């Protein structure tokens, strides 16, 4: 085992890791179970977290690759008491059914909107393309994320 240090949800943390451990393994064995394991091969987006401002798939990122980086997981974004506007919008739009894909959707959408608050519908679709949802049919998810994008996107969104 070796140590790595990185910023996790705003706090500098040091962990002992196995060399072949993935980031999702590290997070989940440290009780950060909001990050979901779907396909485990980078194809579904349910494990998305934000690394240095960009969405990445925690299931194929090795834990050692986050040394010195800044990682944000769903636990750092919001919870039932203090939901992030994206979480509120998804719940209000009826965009959450089983909820398994939701953390990944939130993280991928948040990474985009943090960088481009007035992202267009086309940009939102491009960024969420890799996030699979087996329940909702995507329309309500898209509606919720579009609603969270700052005004100025309405023209294209309509």
């Amino acid at each position: 085992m070796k140590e790595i240090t990185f910023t996790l949800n705003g706090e500098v943390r040091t962990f002992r890791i196995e060399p072949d451990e993935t980031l999702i393994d590290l997070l989940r064995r440290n009780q950060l179970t909001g990050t979901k394991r779907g396909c485990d091969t980078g194809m579904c987006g349910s494990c998305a977290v934000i690394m240095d401002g960009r969405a990445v798939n925690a299931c194929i990122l090795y834990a050692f690759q986050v040394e010195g980086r800044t990682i944000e997981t769903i636990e750092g974004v919001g919870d039932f008491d203090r939901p992030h506007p994206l979480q509120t919008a998804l719940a209000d739009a009826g965009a959450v059914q089983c909820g398994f894909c939701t953390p990944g959707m939130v993280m991928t959408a948040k990474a985009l909107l943090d960088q481009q608050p007035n992202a267009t519908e086309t940009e939102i679709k491009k960024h969420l393309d890799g996030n699979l949802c087996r329940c909702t049919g995507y329309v309500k998810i898209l509606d919720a994320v579009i609603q969270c994008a700052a005004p100025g996107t309405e023209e294209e969104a309509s």
Partner: protein
Amino acid sequence: MNYIDFTIPQTLTEARDALKALGPEGMPVAGSTLHVFLRDEAPKVAVDLRQLGLNRIDAEADGFVVGATATVTDMDEYAAPGWVLDRVACEFVTQPIRNMATIGGSIVRVFPWSDWPVPLLALDAQLVITGDDERTMGSSEFFAVQPFHHLHPGDLLTAVQVPALRTGEGFGYFKERRTSTDFSRCTVAVWLQLAQHKIAAVRVAIGAATPMPRRMPAIESALTGARPGPDAFTQAVQAGLDEARWKGLHGISDDYARHLASVRIVDALTAAWTEAKGNTE
């Protein structure tokens, strides 16, 4: 991968020294997104390449130098006159993978469906390998074999030199897939140069529908000096298809792969020609 240890070097020299000392046990790791496709279970030591400062894209006199750890997102977001690789990057899926995957990791180990070799062949990009000395290899030579065979322990691909599109030149790119996040079934890239309304030079590259990405020299020579247009394109493509072995991927027959290629090469030629016509002083 069966990683038994890892190291995170901060300079190219440190990375190369580590890989040289490790020999076959050393494994360069960039975005790690190709690892799910690698079947090697031998114990390895991971050497992380992402702290070496090789992630810049610089505009130079004749084109661009893309550092080996520039990500697909870096290439998607980069903008400069004559830069065309954003058209390839935006078709690479998905967004988290674009954020992680690097150009180096995309071309050192090539699969039939790999996106990047095809446009790099069409653009005649040069690959920079840093070993005990630095050498530059043309894309045709680089992709003639599985590229990692060019690398000795301690060698790294450090940059890709991509020519800028200039006056009278056009670039066409198509990635044919069944769903937006699917792997390619046929990737085509064409670079074309016009002079006096004729094709002065053209490069046609194809992947996914063939066992490995490749150029199509018979089509290129049939079109060089010709007057461009739908008939010339179709004739040259039909006459030149036999030079490649066609191989359909995942549910696509070899015959259909050949057919897809014939349609998409004409489309890419048309797109490149259209751009070249508009791309005047």
